[in-house]
């Protein structure tokens, strides 16, 4: 097995190698994470005190919108695709992704799509300012000129995601080593398979939504205009038909990650493997019939409110199964607490808090009170930051030795963990209270009564932001000068990538498939 690889810039531009492409995805998502994070810092600086301090309300709206868009489409989604690229072929014993050139295209579309999106800051009228949900008519009749560039940028991201998803599905269905039956696949592969299915089902619907926006804006159609027989509420239905599965697209791969890590550091098999698979599949299927829980307050027939309320609460069942299984895996295991495990345990606890606030929001009558308040912001940050982001972070610490052949400094990792843990709660926990007390989201100024909560949240946010820079330093130090990693760095780890490959994994792996019993 030769480890020869091309060099220079064309190595990255022309590459068809899943490991190169995986690395590019991961670095790209981290850069986006820092850009989106910088916008969060602007938001929190403005909200440190009541009154207008630093930015104008118009610019504040652009900050919240772009922060949300960049974090969702630029940071979280690509980070998961990066993990998929690195890990899936190694985990199932495949030589590469099934369609390597298309894989390259999926990646390289993204930097251009985000250049397009970010360039809107320089345009007249500024960047999109209607929130990451771009509801009509804010985005149609009242959207700034840059909205059209946003629309085409979303099209590009969609093309990239769909091609990436097709690649994952085909790889999993067609490239498994002999003996690697579906029910032997690592759970990370399962969760990504299901995620890819969701992507193929909903990204085209997003494309349809923005296309209707475009024609409403410029070609006189009336999809979202009641005067012509359309309906702005219809926008919300179509958007959330994409939007709700989208949140599972962001979180399912992270479920997969912690389902690999917790068994490794508990030195036990994952509790209830098959129930994990079925739970993931049920969550995915249910996610298609709950979208209007985002619209309780906008108005629906009572039957609709009830249906979406009950369907949403049903999702708590398979999710509960998963949380139970993670905890049961740890039960009576011989636990150790290296950095990936710490992030995974925090994931289980904090994601569950986010799940609980989700169940509260799912109750239609009380959502009338919570809707569009900081309670919602608290909820989705609990599932996104300590959920999706902690999941990716845990994965980076866990597989870094395999990817680079170098170990990170465990003390640094633990410091990163504890600072993140403290600051993430300091930032987002107070938002529950300001939200319950009625503070609206997407607002640059607020009533005096919310001042204390906001000050705490802002202090936490600055700390949380700096901590992520520390993460970058830790990783760079590890890559530059970390101790050499063992082939099987974690004694409890299982899977082909640990059992059949050296560290670092060679440029080309499994040119002939390994035999799996």
């Amino acid at each position, binding site marked *: 097995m030769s480890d020869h690889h091309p060099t220079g810039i064309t190595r990255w531009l022309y590459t068809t190698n899943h490991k190169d492409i995986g690395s590019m995805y991961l670095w790209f998502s981290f850069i986006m994470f820092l850009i989106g994070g910088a916008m969060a810092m602007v938001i929190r600086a403005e909200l440190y005190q009541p009154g207008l301090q630093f930015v104008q309300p118009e610019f504040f709206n652009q900050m919240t919108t772009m922060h949300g868009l960049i974090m969702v489409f630029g940071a979280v989604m690509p980070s998961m695709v990066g993990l998929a690229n690195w890990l899936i072929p190694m985990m199932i014993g495949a*030589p590469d992704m099934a369609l390597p050139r*298309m894989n390259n295209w999926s990646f390289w579309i993204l930097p251009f799509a985000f250049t397009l999106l970010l360039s809107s800051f320089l345009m007249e009228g500024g960047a999109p300012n209607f929130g990451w949900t771009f509801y009509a008519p804010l985005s149609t009749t009242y959207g700034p000129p840059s909205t059209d560039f946003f629309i085409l*940028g979303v099209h590009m991201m969609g093309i990239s995601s769909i091609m990436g998803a097709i690649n994952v599905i085909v790889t999993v269905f067609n490239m498994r080593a002999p003996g690697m039956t579906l029910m032997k696949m690592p759970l990370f592969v399962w969760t990504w398979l299901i995620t890819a299915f969701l992507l193929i089902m909903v990204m085209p*619907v997003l494309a349809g939504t923005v296309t209707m926006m475009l024609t409403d804006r410029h070609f006189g159609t009336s999809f979202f205009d009641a005067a012509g027989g*359309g309906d702005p509420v219809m926008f919300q239905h179509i958007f959330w038909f994409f939007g709700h599965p989208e949140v599972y697209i962001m979180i399912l791969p992270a479920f997969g990650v912690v389902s690999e890590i917790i068994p490794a550091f508990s030195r036990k098999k994952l509790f209830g493997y098959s129930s994990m698979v079925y739970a993931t599949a049920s969550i995915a299927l249910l996610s298609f019939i709950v979208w209007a829980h985002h619209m309780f307050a906008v108005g629906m027939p009572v039957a609709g409110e009830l249906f979406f309320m009950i369907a949403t609460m049903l999702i708590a069942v398979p999710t509960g199964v998963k949380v139970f299984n993670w905890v049961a895996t740890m039960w009576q295991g011989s636990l150790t607490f290296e950095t990936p495990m710490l992030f995974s345990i925090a994931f289980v606890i904090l994601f569950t808090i986010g799940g609980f606030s989700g169940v509260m929001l799912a109750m239609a009558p009380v959502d009338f009170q919570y809707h569009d308040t900081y309670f919602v912001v608290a909820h989705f940050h609990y599932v996104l930051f300590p959920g999706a982001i902690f999941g990716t972070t845990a994965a980076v610490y866990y597989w870094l030795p395999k990817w680079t052949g170098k170990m990170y400094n465990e003390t640094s990792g633990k410091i990163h963990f504890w600072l993140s843990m403290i600051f993430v709660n300091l930032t987002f926990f107070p938002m529950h209270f300001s939200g319950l007390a009625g503070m609206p989201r997407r607002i640059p100024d607020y009533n005096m009564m919310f001042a204390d909560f906001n000050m705490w949240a802002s202090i936490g946010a600055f700390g949380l932001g700096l901590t992520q820079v520390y993460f970058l330093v830790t990783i760079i130090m590890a890559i530059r000068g970390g101790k050499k990693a063992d082939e099987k760095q974690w004694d409890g780890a299982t899977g082909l990538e640990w059992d059949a490959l050296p560290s670092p994994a060679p440029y080309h792996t499994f040119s002939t498939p390994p035999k799996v019993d």
Partner: protein
Amino acid sequence: MSTETEEKYESYYVPEQSPWPIVGAVALFFIAYGGANFIQQSTDTVDTGDASWGGLVFMAALAVMIYMVFRWWGDVIKESMDGLYSAQMDRSFKQGMLWFISSEVMFFAAFFGALLYVRQFVIPWLGGEGNNMMTHAIIWPEFAPQWPLTTTPDGTTTTGMGAWGLPAINTAILLTSSWTLTIAHHALKANNRQALLNYTSLTALLGIIFLALQVMEYHHAYTEMGLTLGSGIYGSTFFMLTGFHGFHVTLGTIFLIVLSIRCAKGHFTEKHHFAYEAGAWYWHFVDVVWLFLFIFVYLM
């Protein structure tokens, strides 16, 4: 370990580096950039000053994109002809194509969803159904719910497109084309070259006739029926659905023409003809979408 599996598995072809994807990414960027600018200029809905580069950038980038597709797929065809592709590779392509078509189905589903939602909910609600009596009474008391919506709440009027003229003929044409394509496919499997070429080209020709008739239909709608994109939700859904379908027929027809040329060159064998199968699947998909269109847009 390796010898045993090597016997069962031919090696999977992982292509060397390729410049085409990044060219495609750059082209896509300028298509989007130029396209957005061009739309703003040409519809006069946004003041873009004197700038008039959008259309040019768009066209140039589109040309690069088409060139890129030619070169990339040219590479693929060459590799395939050189026998680099195993049966497993073939399965990757096939599955990839099927999932791509699934994503296309969902793209159309968004517009069908809009159509059904409008007819089922929006129009009756605008007419005061449910708890919407006051909307009706106060904002648009004149509005009468109906489909096709020939008078919108703000008073724009139009006419509905009947099903039994051109649309019915077009349905017959597409159904026939599905049939001719199936004959061609069977001919391919029976290694009957001449029938393969004839029926594939005939299918492409039917596609062109379909498109020509659709152009006539649009012309009629715009000039004589007052049915345009701007004539309320009926025109919006009508043109969006039939328009995107027509766009897909165009792509499918180009696909079929390329396949005809490749048939003439003898590229396909009874066993090895992924591209042909992909083209056929795509055509059948376009066909099925049309049947739904005929029912939900024209008939009902």
